[in-house]
């Protein structure tokens, strides 16, 4: 019986982690360290309004999310809980790589902070956007029989891309996906399909995990190349394909492709299941509780009381914590 740590993607605009910060000294000292590395204040990382410029906002938001996720990890580690497998989506994949020992924490946060220098898109560029899409599972698992790839609304609509697959909902009735692309195309699609099938997300102006993020990928490529990656110390699950990342080159490749390739939570949790994970701990609020189906029990941790819940569940399930490796 072993633990898996799951890290979500996306950049929340709301303050997260205040209660954990106020409760645990290990979180306080961690945020001070992140502040020193990134040039942000603890207040900016923790709770202040995000900047308005698109790429700067994205950068500070990623620092906020990753800082909280690693803070949760550190609190659990202080109680001797450590994962036997680890993985995440998008930003969460990079956080997981860091905690798997593939790159230093400083390198991760300096990279995230440096992304604020990504050139802002031209005012003439078509506006980008994100939408959440739902497909019914009444007639199958929502995938193409030929290759198992998820089928999604707007599959052949120009300007609409599949950006993420979150898998079936907890009640087993739907499959949830993320679409991204040109905002106009997404809006038109939402108007065309049955109501509630495609829901554009207001204020999300970056077509994450699509070819439209190529400028960002190119800007970050040399910075990622400069990071000294190491082989992961524990099984690290990719969110870009069904794969366990075992080498430094694997992890570097994930970092390079992460911004333009679609992500799959199904790949992450299926891989964890194959690695023997029997309890998943979801770090931070980026994968909301109660919406998705997982192949093992999960506990979501974003507030101090969830730490107790995680410890209790680990005890109740008889999770073996004695053999987990010590992470850097």
């Amino acid at each position, binding site marked *: *019986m072993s633990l898996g740590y799951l890290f*979500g*993607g*996306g950049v929340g605009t709301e303050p997260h982690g205040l209660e954990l910060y106020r409760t645990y000294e290990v979180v306080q000292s961690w945020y001070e360290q992140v502040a020193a590395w990134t040039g942000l204040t603890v207040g900016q990382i923790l709770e202040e309004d995000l900047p308005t410029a698109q790429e700067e906002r994205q950068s500070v938001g990623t620092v906020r999310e990753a800082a909280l996720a690693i803070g949760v990890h550190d609190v659990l580690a*202080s*109680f*001797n*809980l450590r994962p036997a497998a680890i993985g995440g989506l*998008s930003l969460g994949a990079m956080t997981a790589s860091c905690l798997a020992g593939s790159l230093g924490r400083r390198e991760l946060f300096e990279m995230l902070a440096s992304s604020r220098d990504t050139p802002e898109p031209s005012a003439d560029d078509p506006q980008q956007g*994100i939408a*959440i899409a*739902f497909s019914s599972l009444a007639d199958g698992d929502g995938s193409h029989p030929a290759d198992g790839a998820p089928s999604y609304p707007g599959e052949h609509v120009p300007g609409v891309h599949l950006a*993420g697959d*979150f898998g079936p*909902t*907890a*009640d*087993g*009735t739907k499959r*949830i996906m*993320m679409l991204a692309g040109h905002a106009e195309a997404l809006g038109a699609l939402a108007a065309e399909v049955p109501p509630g099938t495609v*829901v554009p*997300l207001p204020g*999300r102006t970056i077509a*994450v995990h699509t070819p439209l993020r190529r400028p960002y990928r190119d800007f970050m490529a040399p910075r990622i190349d400069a990071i000294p990656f190491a082989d992961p110390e524990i099984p690290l699950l990719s969110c870009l394909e069904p794969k366990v990342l075992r080498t430094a080159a694997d992890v570097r490749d994930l970092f390079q492709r992460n911004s333009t390739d679609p992500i799959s939570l199904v790949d992450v949790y299926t891989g964890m299941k194959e690695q023997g994970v*029997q309890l998943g701990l979801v770090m931070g*609020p*980026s*994968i*909301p*509780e*109660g*919406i*998705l189906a997982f192949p*093992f*029990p999960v506990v*979501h941790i974003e507030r101090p009381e969830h*730490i*107790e819940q995680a*410890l*209790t*569940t680990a*005890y*109740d*399930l*008889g999770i*073996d*914590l004695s053999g987990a490796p010590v992470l850097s």
Partner: protein
Amino acid sequence: MTAATAATRADPDAQIARWLDTDLDEWTRRVVRRHFDPVTGSPYWLGQAARLDFDPRDITRHDQLGAFGPFPLDRLRVEDPADLVPLSVPRPLAGRVWDSGGTTGTPCRAFYTPDMLLHRALWRRWSFVREGFAPGRTWLQATPTGPHLIGNGVHEVSELHAGQVYAVDMDPRWVKRLIRAGRMAEVDDYTTHLLEQITDVLKQGRVHYVNTTPALFQALRRHRPELVAALDGVRLSGTQISADMYRTFTTALQGGICGLTYGNTFGNAALLDIERDGELISYVPNYPQVTMAVVDKGDPSTLVAPGTVGQVRLTVLHEDLFLPNILERDQALRHPTDHWPTDGVANVRPLQIANSSPEGLY
């Protein structure tokens, strides 16, 4: 022991058959009217009657019990347990008050009359037989005892299943207190302390079956697999059991029985089926005194569709204890079955409430 009780003990299967033949609506009328009888009803419910906007004695069907709304469990932390028992049960009451887990604060308390204890014991015996636990064997019960009703299983096994029982006591409140304080090393120490007592009994080779919690059995399997492999079976009570745990346990038992039960101090459900190598584990309540519904997490008056997930809603319809619509801290699949008069539940897990819309996924 009354003559009726003695007869029931003499032929427990006939009693189970009578219960399963009971018309639920008729049983509901009988129990509700007993508790709301102006002279011989239970003091708690007679006190509530004036606050209700309906006359409970007008209730004719089980599906009308929703009118009571969710039962406020907090009342069971402060009420005199005797006040939940009809006055038709002779006073002064003589018997045990049992606690709920009490791992998160003040426990809820309920008085069990002899008939209630017998009901529980007969169903427990029925489960033993159905799961393949042979009578006349030697058991080790390593569970909470003291205020916890599960500890009464020692007597139930010995009296109704002709078993010889060793016992090891565990204190779940102490374990959870240590966990709350983050004192995980001491949790390990306590587990070791329990395992030492368990292995001291098991290593003599006289025990056929163990009754314990999934967590403790997992620890035993990890530390002394040869002792687990030598057992003829285990019966697990208490917290959740996942498909992975079930498979791990059956592998470790090497052909031994792995029996399961779901429930708590107020009502229990017996294992119905284990399908797809543990991917579907279903239970049926101890009918008619216990019924379970799976309801919408946001609207406990509405059943979810068969096969879908919702919150477990427990109704206790003992002649001597009426607790309608207890909302459990568990979720499960609604599991209707042709093999039972009411719905069963399957794949029980701790309750998860969606704290965001799907739009919060990224």
